[in-house]
């Protein structure tokens, strides 16, 4: 798979900016998503209250995460689920591959799960000899194209219908067309027999209810329901932060998530799965295994500013609102999680050294904070991460420049001299060139306001 790296964000972004088709697709998609979200939020007079409530619930969960996780596990297990704990991606993949191979599984159907993309589960399953089929239409498209997702909600948002049509013709033998209904029917047909033949179904989890041991998964297409009801074994993979306390809390989150993500009041299907079936003759899988993944999440609990990262419900609203994402798209971030939330959790999950550019790739405009259903203060998080990175990892020139800047700004005589120096330096500093490639530079005036004030 053609994975770009977070470490080369700047180059990735440059390439993305040169891709006219991508930019057109991004512009359409983000503005449409943004408009729909705005209308959906406006239709609920208590929208702001809901956001506050959701954030309060998440804050409570995160402050007592161990207790709520234990409660969830106890209740899920009492209903027949088997729960596994995975400290990191490798452990999660190992558990899941083990479950599949123990049951001599050959075909695995998957519904969209960012967590399994995070662990690169598909590569591990394929290495273990299994055929893995992504069933969410957007994920199916990028799987055929051997590309990573570019958006949390609509993974193939970067592709035009013409590109998808051509892909389906080449890979699936579809008669050439750019009609969306026909492409959808093609995918439906091709995937039906995979569902029927699958030994294992792997899904993500949107919410895990501590009170009842229920996992809740939301969708529009129906592939999650097929994935979680046809195969004999259902494996549900979730980050440890997905737990919420009570069944009734779903009222708040099911109002916020679909509206924030796609502007819908509700997505077509919500599946509430609690343990395994009662009788062997009932419908549904024989086994339910739930994999809880840490992979760096518990570390984020150590500070209130970083802890809020874990409140994210993966709606994608921040991506659509972000002026940077709108221009460069998801692939440039080189991470499973792009956009504003990606810029803050990727360095925390993968390690700052692997994603040091991302926290700086923001103008701090705050549009993300405005649309986040759980009120994550992403700009504050970005500043927090910059505060961790700059003093240690900033270039020597930059660190020195700011030390000198502080010296000048705390000395009136140096400050007066600085406007003279500035006028000279303005012409030669590389910073000036970065500016003047696209913009004229307003020269520093020869008389400052300090000089003129009376």
């Amino acid at each position, binding site marked *: 798979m053609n994975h770009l790296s977070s470490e080369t964000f700047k180059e990735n972004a440059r390439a993305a900016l040169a891709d006219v088709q991508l930019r057109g697709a991004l512009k359409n998609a983000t503005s449409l998503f943004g408009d729909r979200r705005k209308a959906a939020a406006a239709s609920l007079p208590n929208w702001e209250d809901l956001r506050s409530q959701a954030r309060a619930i998440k804050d409570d969960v995160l402050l007592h995460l161990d207790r709520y996780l234990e409660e969830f596990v106890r209740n899920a297990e009492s209903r027949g689920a088997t729960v596994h704990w995975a400290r990191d991606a490798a452990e999660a993949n190992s558990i899941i591959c083990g479950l599949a191979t123990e049951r001599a599984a050959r075909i695995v159907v998957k519904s969209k799960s960012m967590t399994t993309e995070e662990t690169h589960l598909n590569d591990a399953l394929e290495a273990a000899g299994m055929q893995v089929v992504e069933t969410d239409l957007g994920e199916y498209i990028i799987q055929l194209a051997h590309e990573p997702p570019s958006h949390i909600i609509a993974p193939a948002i970067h592709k035009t219908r013409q590109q998808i049509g051509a892909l389906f013709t080449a890979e699936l033998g579809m008669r050439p067309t750019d009609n969306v209904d026909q492409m959808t029917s093609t995918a439906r047909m091709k995937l039906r027999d995979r569902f029927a033949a699958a030994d294992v179904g792997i899904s993500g989890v949107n919410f895990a209810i501590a009170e009842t041991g229920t996992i809740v998964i939301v969708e529009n297409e129906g592939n999650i*329901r097929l994935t979680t*009801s046809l195969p004999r074994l259902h494996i549900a993979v979730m980050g440890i932060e997905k737990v919420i306390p009570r069944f009734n809390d779903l009222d708040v989150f099911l109002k916020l998530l679909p509206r924030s993500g796609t502007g819908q009041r509700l997505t077509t299907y919500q599946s509430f799965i609690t343990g395994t079936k009662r009788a062997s003759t009932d419908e549904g899988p024989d086994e339910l295994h739930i994999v*809880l993944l840490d992979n760096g999440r518990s570390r984020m609990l150590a500070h209130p500013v970083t802890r809020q990262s874990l409140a994210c419900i993966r709606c994608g609203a921040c991506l659509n609102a972000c002026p940077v994402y709108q221009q460069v798209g998801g692939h440039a971030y080189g991470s499973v999680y792009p956009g504003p939330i990606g810029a803050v959790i990727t360095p925390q999950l993968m390690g700052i050294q692997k994603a040091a550019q991302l926290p700086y790739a923001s103008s701090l405009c705050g549009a993300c904070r405005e649309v986040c259903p759980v009120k994550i203060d992403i700009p504050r998080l970005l500043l927090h991460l910059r505060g961790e990175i700059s003093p240690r990892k900033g270039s020597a020139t930059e660190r020195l420049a700011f030390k000198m800047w502080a010296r000048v700004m705390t000395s009136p005589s140096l400050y007066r001299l600085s406007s003279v120096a500035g006028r000279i330096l303005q012409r030669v500093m590389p910073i000036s060139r970065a500016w003047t490639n696209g913009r004229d530079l307003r020269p520093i005036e020869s008389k400052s306001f300090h000089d003129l004030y009376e």
Partner: protein
Amino acid sequence: MSNSARESILDSIRTHLAASPPADDPPVTPANPVIPSKSDPVNRFKESVESVSGKCIITTDAADVLKQILTDLNAQRIAYSDNAPNAHDIFSYDVGISTAQAAIAETGTLVLDSDCERHRLVSLVPPVHIAIVNASSIVETLSDALTRLQKKEISPAITFITGPSRTADIELTLAIGVHGPQELYVIVDGSK
């Protein structure tokens, strides 16, 4: 071994929480305002179903309406939830018929409960799903439905259905009928 991973993760959670400085903003718990209900829930339900491309008929003779729909569809192979075909055969059926244990007026949502009915495949696999719900089972809000579900132990599988299946993954263009049904009919039985 899973147990050591469990202990390790729980320990990591506790240690990192203990190391955390206090949050500077006190948690906010705003009151939950009760939004007054509007018109008759049955009619609201019908409007909501239609707004998501479902079809809804209110009737006191559900059996007759059902027969009419099946005739209009020229349905050949019909799967009923009380006599549901198995997981392999269901793929060759044209229509799946189930009841719904409740419905939500504000969103046009059907609530199906696996403890009451074998709904999972019948309402999902055939290209047409017909659901019959009692008018008296229609509740106003999502919250009402969630409360209702907790009156007994939660069933192994509960499904909320709002309209036929759809996607907007290709250029955000809406396509109805992806993996789930392409058509949804809801018959509201007003006789009970």
